[in-house]
C-alpha cells in the first residue's frame, strides 16, 4: 500500500482502472488456456466442497471399476477351468459306462485308465491356473500353486508317501494277513456255521447280516467286532436252497456271499454240497464261505479299499490331515492315524482353512458392496473328481491274475458311478454358479458406477470448468472497455490546459 494522498486524480483513477482491467485480462487468458475457472480451490468459491467430495467419489469409482474388471477376468478364467474339469469328469464317466472293456494296453492298465491318467495331469494343471501370478484355486494362498506335481501325488517322494503307497497300505489292512478281509471263518460246530470279524477296527469286510431261503436260525451280528452264526438245525437245507451273507466294504458299498446248496458231490463255484447230516453240510458250507470270502477279498474289497484310500489321501483340510493306516505291520492294523507333512505328500498346497472357499477372495466393487469369488482345489466338488480320477489311474492289473477282470469291473463300476456325484455332494457346476453370481453382482456394480462416473464428471465440470463461449464474450466486453478506457485516458491526458497556453 503506497500512500497516494495528494497525487492528481486523473493519473490515479486511470492507473487503477487500467491495472484492474489488465488483471481481469490475465485471469480470462488463463481461463481460456486451461478451460478451468480457477487454479485454486478458493477460486471455486462455495463449489469447492462439492468438487472435493465429487472428486473423492470419482477416484473411488476408478478403483472399484478396476476391482470389478479383475473379478471378471479371474472369474472367466476360473469358469473356463471349472468347465473343463466338468468335461473331464463327463469324459471319464462315458469311458466307464458298462459294459467294461478289460483290455490291458500298457503298464497293466486299460485304455480308460491311461486316459484317466492323462486327465489327472490336465486336472492338476487346470487347478494350478494363475492370472498374472495369482493362483486362482489356492484360496488365500494366491502366491503358490494349488496342487503338487502329479508324480509326487501318485508316487510320493523319499519319506513322503504318495497315493499308490496309501492304496497299498490300506489294501494290506483291508485284506488282512490271510487275505480274508479281516474275517475269521470258524470251523463248523455241529450244524452251526459261524464267522466273525477279527477285531473292532475300520478295515476289511463288515458283517451286516445273513438270510437263507430255508429258514436256518441266524444269530445276527452285534456290536463290533461283529459275529454271525447260521444254525442249519436238525434238517439239511433243500437243494437249490440259498445262503446270503451281506458284507459292508470300506468305501461304504456292500457286497454279499451268495451260495446255493447242491446235491452234487463236487460243488461248482458258489455252491456247497448237501452232506449226509446237517453237520456235514455245515462243514461244506463253511468251506464254501471261506473260498468265496477269499475271492471277494481279491475283487470287490480291493476296489473298495482303493476308493477309500483315495478318500483318506485326498479329503483333507486344516482340521483333517490325510489318514494313514497305523503300521507297519499294516495287515493287522486296527486304527488310522493322521499323516504328517513329513511322511505324506499333501496333494493340495493352497489355503487349507475350512471357512467358505468363496470368501478367500473378496473384492470391494462399491463402497458397501463386496463380492466373494475365491475357490480352493480341495473343495468337495473339485476334489471328488481329482480323487476318483487319480484312484482309477493308480491301479494296475495283471492278465495272469484270474480275479483281475472282476476286480477291474468292480473298480471301473465304482469310478464310473462316482463320476455322478453322490447325493448331497457339491458339484463343480455349483461352484461355477456361485462364481457367476459373484461376477454378475460385480458387473452390475461396475455398470452402475460406469453410468455414474460421467454424471460426477459433469457435475465437477459444472463447478470447475468455464465455457469458451463465456470467456469469449467476457474477453470481447473487456477488450471494448479497455480500448475505450485507454482512449479516454489518452484523450484526457491531451486535454490539458498546458497544451493550449
Amino acid at each position: 500500500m503506497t500512500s497516494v494522498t495528494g497525487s492528481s486524480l486523473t493519473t490515479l483513477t486511470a492507473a487503477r482502472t487500467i491495472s484492474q482491467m489488465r488483471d481481469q485480462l490475465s485471469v480470462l487468458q488463463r481461463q481460456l488456456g486451461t478451460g478451468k475457472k480457477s487454479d485454486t480451490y478458493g477460486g471455486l468459491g462455495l463449489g469447492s466442497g462439492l468438487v472435493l467430495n465429487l472428486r473423492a467419489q470419482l477416484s473411488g469409482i476408478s478403483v472399484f471399476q478396476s476391482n470389478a474388471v479383475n473379478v471378471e477376468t479371474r472369474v472367466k478364467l476360473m469358469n473356463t477351468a471349472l468347465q473343463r474339469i466338468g468335461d473331464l469328469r463327463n469324459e471319464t464317466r462315458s469311458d466307464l459306462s458298462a459294459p467294461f472293456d478289460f483290455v490291458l494296453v500298457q503298464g497293466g492298465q486299460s485304455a480308460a485308465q491311461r486316459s484317466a491318467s492323462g486327465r489327472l495331469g490336465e486336472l492338476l494343471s487346470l487347478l494350478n491356473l494363475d492370472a498374472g501370478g495369482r493362483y486362482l484355486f489356492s484360496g488365500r494362498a494366491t502366491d503358490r500353486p494349488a496342487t503338487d506335481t502329479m508324480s509326487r501325488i501318485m508316487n510320493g517322494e523319499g519319506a513322503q508317501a504318495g497315493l499308490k503307497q496309501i492304496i497299498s497300505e490300506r489294501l494290506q489292512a483291508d485284506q488282512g494277513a490271510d487275505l480274508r478281509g479281516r474275517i475269521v471263518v470258524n470251523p463248523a460246530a455241529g450244524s452251526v456255521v459261524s464267522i466273525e470279524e477279527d477285531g473292532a477296527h475300520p478295515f476289511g469286510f463288515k458283517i451286516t447280516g445273513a438270510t437263507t431261503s430255508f429258514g436256518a436260525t441266524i444269530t445276527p451280528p452285534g456290536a463290533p467286532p461283529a459275529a454271525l452264526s447260521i444254525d442249519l438245525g436238525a434238517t439239511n437245507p433243500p437243494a437249490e436252497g440259498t445262503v446270503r451273507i451281506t458284507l459292508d466294504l470300506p468305501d461304504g458299498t456292500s457286497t454279499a456271499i451268495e451260495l446255493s446248496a447242491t446235491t452234487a458231490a463236487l460243488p461248482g463255484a458258489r455252491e456247497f454240497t448237501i452232506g449226509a447230516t446237517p453237520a456235514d453240510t455245515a462243514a461244506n458250507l463253511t468251506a464254501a464261505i471261506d473260498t468265496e470270502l477269499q475271492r471277494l477279498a481279491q475283487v470287490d474289497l480291493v476296489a473298495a479299499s482303493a476308493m477309500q484310500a483315495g478318500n483318506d489321501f485326498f479329503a483333507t483340510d486344516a482340521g483333517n490331515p490325510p489318514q494313514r493306516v497305523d503300521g507297519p505291520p499294516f495287515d493287522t492294523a486296527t486304527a488310522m492315524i493322521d499323516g504328517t507333512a513329513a511322511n505324506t505328500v499333501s496333494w493340495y498346497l493352497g489355503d487349507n482353512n475350512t471357512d467358505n472357499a468363496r470368501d478367500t477372495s473378496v473384492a470391494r466393487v462399491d463402497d458397501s458392496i463386496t463380492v466373494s469369488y475365491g475357490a480352493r482345489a480341495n473343495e468337495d466338488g473339485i476334489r471328488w473328481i481329482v480323487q476318483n480320477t487319480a484312484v482309477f489311474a493308480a491301479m494296475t492289473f495283471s492278465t495272469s491274475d484270474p480275479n483281475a477282470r472282476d476286480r477291474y469291473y468292480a473298480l471301473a463300476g465304482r469310478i464310473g458311478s462316482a463320476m455322478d456325484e453322490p447325493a448331497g455332494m457339491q458339484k463343480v457346476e455349483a461352484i461355477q454358479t456361485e462364481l457367476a453370481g459373484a461376477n454378475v453382482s460385480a458387473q452390475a456394480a461396475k455398470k452402475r458406477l460406469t453410468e455414474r462416473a460421467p454424471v460426477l464428471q459433469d457435475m465437477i465440470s459444472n463447478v470447475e470448468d468455464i465455457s469458451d463461449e463465456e470467456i469469449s464474450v467476457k474477453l470481447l466486453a473487456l477488450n471494448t472497455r479497455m480500448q475505450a478506457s485507454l482512449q479516454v485516458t489518452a484523450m484526457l491526458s491531451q486535454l490539458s490546459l498546458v497544451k493550449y497556453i
Partner: protein
Amino acid sequence: MGLGTALSSALSGLRATQVGINVVATNVANAETPGYSRKTLALEAALAGGSGFGVRVSNVNRELDIYVQRQLRTELAGANYIDIIAQVRQQIDRMYGEPGSASALDTILNGFTNSLQALAADPHSASTRQAVLNAAQVMAQKLHSLSNDVTLMRNQAEAGIGDAVARVNGLLKTIENVQTQIIALSAQNVELGALLDQRDLAINELAGLIDIQVTANGVNNVAIFTNSGISLFDMQASQLTFDEKPLSAQSLWNANPSLSGTGTIKLVSPNGFTLDLIADKSIRSGKIAGLIELRDDILVKAQAQLDEIAHALATALSSRTVGSDPAVNGAQTGFEIDLADLQDGNSISLTYTVNSGPTTNRVTIVRVDDPSSLPLSNAFTVDSGDQVIGVSFAGGVAGALAALNAALGPDVQFDNPGAGTILRVLDDGAPNLVNIDALSATVTTSTIQSGDGSLPFFVDGSGNVLYTNAVNGGRQQKIGFATRIAVNSALLADSSGLINIDANTLAGDSTRPDYLWQRLTLANQLFSPNTGIGGTAQPFSGSIVSFARQIITYQSTATENALRLKEGQDVVLNSLQDRMAESTGVNIDSEMARLLQLQNAYAANARVMTAVKELFEMLIRV
C-alpha cells in the same frame, strides 16, 4: 495619495503575483508527489493608515480536508490488515494444489486409500504392495511439504512483524523530528506547509501499520494513540521492540516470555514504561495486527489441521480397543482390564453412574508418564463431556492406583489384583451409590504382526518412534507431527507386513488392507476443534478422508471470504483516496488557469508601473 503610492501598490502586486507563480510552480512540480497537498495563495489588501497600500500575501494555505484525512487513516489500517491476510490466505489456498491436480492434497489422500483398496483386491502382488507404500510416502511427504510451507509463512509473518516494527519506530522518530521543527518554526511565523505534509505522510504510513487515532494537540501539533488508547507519540516518540525468533511448527506465542516460542511486541514509552502489546491485545488493525493474526491464529490453525490429519492417519491405522471383563469382589462389582499394551499417551474410557441423580459420568484416563505435564485439562480430549485424568503408569498399574483413587474415590475404587497388568475398577458395593457401567482402553499397536488389522503404519520421525500422542513437557506429540510423520521403515524394508497379521497369514489374505481402507474411508472419528473445524460442544465427526476435504474447503472458503472483504475494503479506500486527491491534490488545469490569471495580473501591474513611469516622465518634462 500620490503616484508613489500607486507605484508601490503596483510593486506589491508584482511581488504578490511572483509569489503566486511560485506557488503554482511548486504545485505543478509536486503534482505527483505522494503526500503533497495543494497550496493556495491568500491575498489581502495592504492598509496603511486606513487606506489601501497595495496587496499583501497573507498566507500560503494548505488545502486539506481534515474529515477525509481522518477517515482515510482509519481505512488504511483496515485495508492493510485485510490485504496481508488475503495475500497469505491465497498462498495457503494455492498450497493445497490445483483442483484435481496430481499434487493436490485430496488427490494424494484419495490415491493412498485407493492403493489400499487395490491391495485388498490383489494382496499378494508385490507391485500393488509397493504402490501402497509409495502412496503412503507421498502422503507423508505432502504433509511435510505443506507444514513446511505453513512454517515458512509463519516465519515470513514473524519477519514481517520485525520489519513493520522497525518501520513504525522509524516513522515515529520522523514524526518526532518534524514535529519538533514545526514547533520551533511556528513561533517564527514561517511557512509550514511542507513540514506538515511530511509529518502527515509519515502518520498516514503509520496508520497503515497500526490502527491509530490522531488528535490535535494545540496549533500544528498532534498526539498519536493506538485505537486501544496507548500513547505512541506526544511530543516525544515511544519506541517498539520485537524479539524476532526463528519459528518451527511447535513454536507458539505465550504471554509468559520464558515459554513463548515466538517474538512479542513491547512498547517502551519515553519515560521508560513498557507494555506487551500482543498480550494486551492493543494492536487491533493494520498490517501488524494482520501479521500477528496470521502468525498466531490463521497459520497455527492451518498447522493444527495438518497435524490433525497426520494424527488421525497414524492413530486410525495403529489403534485398537481392549475390552474388559466383569469383576466382582464381595459386594462390589465392576470390570477388570488388561493394560499390558497401554502406551504413554493411550487412554482408558470409564463410564459410571451415580445413582442419586442418576447421572452418567464419562471419564477418560490418559497415561501421561511425564509428571511435569500433569494435571491434564478436560479439553485434552475432543469429547467435551468427559472428565480427563492424566495418570503416570511409569510405575505400572500398581503405581497408578494412588492417583486414580485420589481422583475418583472413594465410590469408584481402583485396584491391581495379582499385581500384574490388570486394572480392576469396582463400585462402592453395599451402599450402592455408584455403578460401574463400562470400561475399555484404546491402545497403540506396536508390532507389525499384531494378530489383527491394526499396525503402526505411520511413525514419528525417521527413528521409527511409535506415535501415541504422548504428552511431554506439557506438549502433545501431535503438535508439529505433520512435519515428522513417516512410514514405518520396517514396512518399507518388508512390504509383507501390509498383509501378514501374524506368522501364518496367507499371501492372498485381504483382511488387513481392507481393514486399513475401512479405517481411512468409513470409520468415523472426532476431530479436534483447535483446527477451526467443528466446535467444542460438537466436534467435527467423520472419516479422515472427509476431514481432509473439510480442511481444503475451510481454507478455500476463508480465502474467498478474505478476498471479498479485501475487495470491499479496496472500494472504500479507493473512494476515500479519490476524495482526498480531489480536495488536496493538484489539478494541472486549474493551476494553468491560475497561471493565466497571474500572468494577466502581472502584466496589469507592470502596465500600472509603465503608466506611472510615463506620468513621472511627463511631469519631469513639464
